[in-house]
C-alpha cells in the first residue's frame, strides 16, 4: 500500500452493488483497532501497524496524519497534546462513536475476508468449467 487512501464507509460498502476497492476502509479499520487497545501518537501507530502486520502494510509514514485528522473531525478519535520525556506528542484515542464505527467496519471486513477466503479455498473447483462439472 503506497498510501493510506481515503477510506469508504460501511454503508457505502453494503449499499453499492459493486465493491471495486477491497481495501476501501482498511486503513481506517487498522487505525481504529490499534487505538481501541490503547491511546497512541502518530509514530507509535505507524510502528504498531508495521510490527503487527509483519511489515506487509507499508506506506509513506507521513500519510497517517491526514487519516487521523479526518477521523478526529468525524468525532471518531480525540486528540490531546501530552508531555513525553521533555517533549510533547499529540496522542489519539478512540471515542464512543469511533468504537461503534470500528465494530461496523470490522464486521464488514470479516464478511468480505470470509467470502474471499471461500473463493480461494474452492479455487480448484471454481476453475472447472460448468459443462465439464455436469459431465463429470
Amino acid at each position: 500500500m503506497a498510501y493510506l487512501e481515503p477510506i469508504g464507509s460501511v454503508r457505502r460498502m453494503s449499499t453499492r452493488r459493486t465493491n471495486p476497492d477491497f481495501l476501501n476502509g482498511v486503513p481506517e479499520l487498522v487505525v481504529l483497532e490499534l487505538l481501541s487497545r490503547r491511546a497512541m501518537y502518530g509514530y507509535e501507530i505507524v510502528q504498531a501497524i508495521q510490527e503487527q502486520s509483519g511489515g506487509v502494510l507499508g506506506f509513506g509514514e507521513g500519510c497517517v496524519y491526514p487519516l487521523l485528522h479526518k477521523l478526529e473531525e468525524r468525532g471518531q478519535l480525540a486528540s490531546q497534546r501530552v508531555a513525553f520525556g521533555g517533549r510533547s506528542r499529540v496522542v489519539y484515542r478512540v471515542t464512543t462513536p469511533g468504537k461503534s464505527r470500528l465494530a461496523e467496519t470490522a464486521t464488514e471486513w470479516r464478511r468480505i475476508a470470509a467470502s474471499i477466503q471461500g473463493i480461494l479455498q474452492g479455487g480448484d473447483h471454481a476453475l472447472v468449467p460448468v459443462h465439464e462439472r455436469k459431465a463429470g
Partner: protein
Amino acid sequence: MPSFLFMKEKPVETTLYAELIRRGLPADYAKRTAEELDDHRVDLLANLRAAGAANPEAVADERLGKTRVLAKRIARDYHRRSWFGRWPLVSFVVLPPLVLATAWTGVVLVLFGVGKIWTWSGGAPGEIWSPVEYTRLSWGLALGVFSFLVPAVVAWFYGRVVLQTTQSRMLVLTACLGIGLLNSLPRHSYRIDPAKPELAMNLISVPFCDPMDAASLRQLASPVAASQLLTPVLIGVILVWRDNSRRRTSLLAISDGSEPARVAA
C-alpha cells in the same frame, strides 16, 4: 523583503508548513500537521540512530515521503472532507447558476409578498399598469436588485464556500463566471404603451425565449449585459486577490520565522 528561497534552509517542519499554506490550507491546520510530522521525524531519527542506520536523515526523509508529495496528499484529503471538495465540477460548474436562479426566485417571492401586504394595507395601486414614474423607479430597482445585488451576493458567498472547501482559485473564478453567464441573460426594461402614454409596464425578457421582446446577439453584447456578466466575475477576482494576500502574508510570516497570520479564507 524575505525571500522564499530561505525556506530551503529551514527545517522540514517549516518547509512542509509553507507548502501546505501555499496549497491553501488554513494556517492552524497546516501548523498542526507540520508539527506532528516534525515530531514523527524526530522519533524516527532517534530510532534510526539507535539502530545504527547509515545516513539516518535520508532514510527518515524517504520513509516520511517527499515534502511536495506529502503536502499534495494532505491538501487533497483535507479538501475531500467536504461534499463540495469531493464533487468539485458539480459543485462549482453546475450548481452556481442553479443557486442564482433559486436566489432570484426567493427574492421574487419576498417582493411579491411585500407588494401584497402593501396593497392589502392600501399603500400601493393594485393594477398591473402603473404611472410612468412609478414604473421607471421599479425598473431601476429590479435591475439593481436582480442583475447586480443578488448575483453579487451569491457570487460572494459561493466564492467563499469554494475557497473554504477546495482552496482552488480557478474554481472560484469558474463558479463566478457561471453565475455571470446566467446573470447576463435576463434583460430588464420598461415599455410605454403608445395608446396610453401615461401608462408603462416593466418587462423581464430572456434572449431567444421571449416572443414579446425578440432577443438578439446584440442584446447579449450590450453594456448592461456585459456589466451583468462581469459583476460576479469581479467579485470572484476580489476573492482570489484576498486569498492570494492571505497566503502571501502567511508565507512571509513563515519565512520571517514568526507565526502565520490567522486570517479566515
